[in-house]
């Protein structure tokens, strides 16, 4: 597989990250989808509003580098995001479609409500 990015879903409750679809920059065919979870071919065919006020773009139909950059700019949320473009060897999903989250020490201070009842 050529250089590619992966769209990743955070399964927060379960504590792992799962690959949804791979977008590959193919020298011969432009952007090509692989490892497609149900529905993602359709979702990636929708127009993306990358910047506020910008015209929506159809990432898959763009020239490959512009298309990949648009996907990275658009998919950066808490639940679904795009990785950076990487090689096969550097792919975090080279051993499977799931990556576990890691334990972390987190402190949360108790708060008197700033949102009055």
């Amino acid at each position, binding site marked *: 597989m050529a250089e590619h990015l992966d769209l*990743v*879903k*955070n*399964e*927060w*409750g379960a*504590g792992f*990250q*799962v690959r*949804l679809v791979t977008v590959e920059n193919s020298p011969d065919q432009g952007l090509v989808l692989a490892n497609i*979870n*149900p*529905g993602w071919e359709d*979702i990636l065919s*929708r*127009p*993306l*509003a990358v910047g*506020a*006020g910008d015209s*929506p773009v159809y990432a898959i139909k763009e020239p490959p580098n512009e298309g990949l950059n648009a996907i*990275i700019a*658009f*998919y*950066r*949320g*808490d*639940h*679904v*995001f*795009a*990785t*950076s473009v*990487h090689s096969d060897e550097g792919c*975090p999903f080279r051993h499977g*479609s799931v*990556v*576990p*989250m*890691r*334990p*972390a*020490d*987190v*402190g*949360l*201070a*108790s*708060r*008197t*409500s*700033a*949102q*009055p*009842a």
Partner: protein
Amino acid sequence: MTDHLGLLRQYLEQAPVVYGYVPQLTAGGGHGNKIAVVLEGGVHALVKPASGAQDGLLAVQNEAAAWELACLLGWGELVAGTVIRDVLPPQSGAPEPAAVQVMWPGYDWTPAPGSFPEGETWKAAILDMLMLHSDRTNNNWLGVPPAQLPFPGPVYGSRQQLKLIDHGFAFDFPGRANLSSSFVDLHRGNPIPADLLQAVGAGLAQVEASPVRAILDDMPFERLKARFEGLLQSGSL
């Protein structure tokens, strides 16, 4: 706000952390700093520290204000319970404000807007119009419970409900004070159903005394009020 939602707010503001975890992979390979926690009693919450975004404190406030706005209208089912707390993130080690919000247990990413009942999409459109959401075009909503899974067939047969997420870029966020919403697009130009318009009127009557006022700065709050009044005057999107 009804008692149970007030109790949820109080719980989210005070419950101790049982354990936490962080993702290995982050957007664009960048240094994301979102944290998952399980709070005492077993509630899963997502912690979004202010340092994770430009104008991050505003984004944190907006996340909480979005939930409070939904509750003010009586539509608290559309947005996960969200409060502001000070967090000591493992990534930085320095205390900072964060949005702490309940996680939906499982979800699909942005099912087509038309797949939801019209009542839900109307509420989403009105909320987006009021908060001036700038990042809801084909983005930032969930279908709960999940139906599209990495294997054929639904796990459970419940009807999928609409849930709105990621409200940092709303409430006249600097440089992004543009409305962009697939739900507004869906209903644009149509008269608002009478029961929902009534909720908007009731919301405006109570907004000064609501938590929304305590969270938002003066300018975005005044603009929010102006959008309430505009919707009531026009009666349509």
